[in-house]
């Protein structure tokens, strides 16, 4: 008996993996013209794993606090062996994860994979994306440099526009009236403990739903019952393809981290100068690229719309659109006979157009 088989039997004796392998090998993944979109969920997961690993490494040297945060990040990238590489991979994977998660979300939206019985997979996915954005927002402040300080001041300041709870939310986030060392403590705790904990639970649910319900088949198969349906086994065929994509991503990450350790253009994170609350703010303060569309939309609104404050109106409209987006599986109606919901598709394109235009304006109108 080969060593591989011996190892398998040894493990199976203890964990009963034979049933799991049997379950996975009987699971089939539909193959069709849009199968490529299936890989983006896996890419997001891979990049999240990379972030967890690099985040743990960064945690070994990072010291939160107004007097130590900047210095420790500087130490990591200039003195710690491969510290620069770890920080660069952490930052690149964070940005690429958000990008992959957006593609994953829109691909699920336009292939209508959210439809019954996968409503909970969609909702958990939307919350996961929201958590990913919260990871980005909280992590941005941690180097305590000039840009992150002022961007966080503007970002948290927007929360103050929310009626009734705005002032409370702002003080809660900042740990006081202004962004200070207390804010770093809060954001740090959020970034390395609170968010990962919630993320892990939600991610488990998300993956559990996918495993139990299988991967959604295209709507066209329902519309044309005569179509020849092709499947491949989840294990090992699809898993191997997933691993191949992950390896390609790893190569891309390595190249980006080595050639562009501080990022490039709108996606950049140079350490720069230490945050100085008394210094004049830099001429251009921008949040991370994935917040630009919301930031720009709130910025171009007039001071008042009817009797409502412009910023508050913007927050209400964006929040309303977010709730509709979240509840799409329940609002899209019936998909009987492979019917395509034209209104939902139009709404999806409107959202994409809005994000692209606002992001473009956010970078151009400066």
């Amino acid at each position, binding site marked *: 008996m080969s060593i591989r088989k011996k190892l398998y039997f040894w493990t199976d004796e203890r964990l009963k993996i034979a049933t799991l392998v049997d379950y996975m090998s009987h699971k089939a993944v539909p193959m069709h013209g849009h199968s490529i979109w299936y890989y983006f969920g896996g890419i997001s997961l891979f990049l999240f794993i990379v972030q967890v690993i690099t985040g743990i490494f960064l945690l070994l040297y990072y010291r939160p606090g107004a007097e130590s945060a900047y210095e420790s990040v*500087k130490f990591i*990238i*200039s003195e710690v062996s491969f510290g*620069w*590489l770890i920080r660069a991979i952490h930052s690149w994977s964070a940005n690429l994860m958000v990008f992959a998660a957006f593609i994953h979300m829109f691909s699920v939206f336009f292939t209508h994979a959210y439809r019954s019985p996968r409503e909970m997979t969609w909702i958990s996915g939307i919350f996961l994306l929201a958590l990913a954005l919260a990871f980005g927002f909280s992590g941005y402040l941690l180097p305590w440099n000039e840009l992150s300080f002022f961007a966080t001041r503007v970002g948290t300041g927007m929360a103050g526009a929310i009626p009734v709870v705005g002032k409370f939310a702002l003080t809660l986030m900042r740990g006081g009236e202004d962004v200070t060392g207390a804010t770093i403590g809060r954001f740090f705790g959020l970034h390395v403990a609170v968010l990962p904990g919630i993320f892990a639970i939600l991610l488990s649910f998300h993956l559990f739903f996918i495993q139990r319900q299988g991967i959604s088949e295209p709507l066209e198969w329902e519309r044309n019952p005569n179509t020849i349906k092709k499947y*491949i086994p989840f294990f*090992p*065929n699809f898993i*191997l*393809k997933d*691993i*191949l994509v992950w*390896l*390609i991503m*790893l*190569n891309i990450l*390595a*190249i980006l981290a*080595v050639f562009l*350790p*501080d990022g490039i253009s709108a996606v950049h994170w140079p*350490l720069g100068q230490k945050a100085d609350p008394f210094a004049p703010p830099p001429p251009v303060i921008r949040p991370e690229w994935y917040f630009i569309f919301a930031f720009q939309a709130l910025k171009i609104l007039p001071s008042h719309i009817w009797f409502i404050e412009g910023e508050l109106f913007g927050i209400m409209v964006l929040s309303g659109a977010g709730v509709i987006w979240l509840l799409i599986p329940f609002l899209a109606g019936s998909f009987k006979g492979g019917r395509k919901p034209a209104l939902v598709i139009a709404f999806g394109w409107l959202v994409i157009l809005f994000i692209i235009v606002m992001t473009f304006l956010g970078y151009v109108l400066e």
Partner: protein
Amino acid sequence: MFGALAKLIRLTFIPAFLLVVSPLPALADKCFDCHSGWEEGDKTPSKLFSHDVHLKNGLGCSDCHGGDPTLDDMDEVRKSRGFKGVPNPAKIPDFCAACHSNPAYMVKHNPALPTDQLEKYKTSIHGKRLYEKGDIKVANCVSCHSVHNIESPEIPTSTVYAQNIPQTCARCHADSAYMKEYGIPTDQYEKFAKSVHGMALLVKKDNGAPACNDCHGNHGATPPGVTSLSAVCGTCHNLIADNFAKSPHKAAFDAMEYPECEACHSNHYIEEPKLYWVGTTDSSLCIKCHAPDDGTRGLATADEISKSLAKLFRSYGQSVAEIADADEKGMMVTDEKFALNEVKQAIIQTRTEVHTFDAARVGVIAESGIATAEKVYKVGQSKIDDYYFRRKGLGIATLLITILAIAIYLKIKSIDK
């Protein structure tokens, strides 16, 4: 009753109303009304006077030119009390000094302004020629401060604003035809503009850099003589002047009646110091006076100092280039750039210490700079090595991942079959 009320209005409210709405200066000073009426162009006294510091301090035409400003008729004005009219050029300093040399008067308008301008002016070359020889071509108050649009030296449009002073002096001093009879050069402005002082003042717009008046004085403008030159330069370069005064050169220069700073640095065209100035080569300044057999250690000292400086400059140049290279490659060199400032500081210090003409003192500072520069150079080198190591590492990692990816791809293909 109504008659009494009407009288009250007529006597109290109407005059009060007129007092508020009527243009008081026009009523009080007729000079403006008439002169602005018939003068044409932008450079006329009435136009220029709107920017004048005297107007801003509440003074009018009659405060300088005398006469009764409430009169309409010019003939009557000429006959009125204290009328001075246009002053004779030879009398302009006294004309201005009537107020400016009167502390009791000046304290009411500008207490910070000195009142000794006329006294100083009389000691200047300009003043001496005017008062002793009656030469009205020399500069008087209005030559520099202008007429009717006199502005405070702090105002950038003022003719005596620091950055405008060289041009103001050059109006006469760079005019070879105008200056012909005085037999002095007229290339001072041209030389000054190219000098380190001129570049700092006129190009970098650094008002801290010296203009003509900082060396020559302003109201007491005098060319500094051989004995006073080091005192003039030492006003700003005090450490250098101090070093020079304690050096063996001081006695030698005094004996030979050499101007101290000017002997090596020239006067108006003062260049950025060059490394080759100190040494024993043909282009060095030391050999102008020293010779191998002159019985002094002059050339030996010059040679030692020259070698120390050359080594310091070489080390600095190499470390700057190395750090720039590392920086360009995207490596973090913030601390090293900061350390290079220490080397630059050492270079500045050696420039001061050179004036002790003590090779040992220069050597100590140079060595400390060289040690820092070499340390920075090594760090720069290690950063560049690290840069190439990263790329080699990336190459190997990418290759391994690619091989693994190809293997998986082949496995997928075989399973699909």
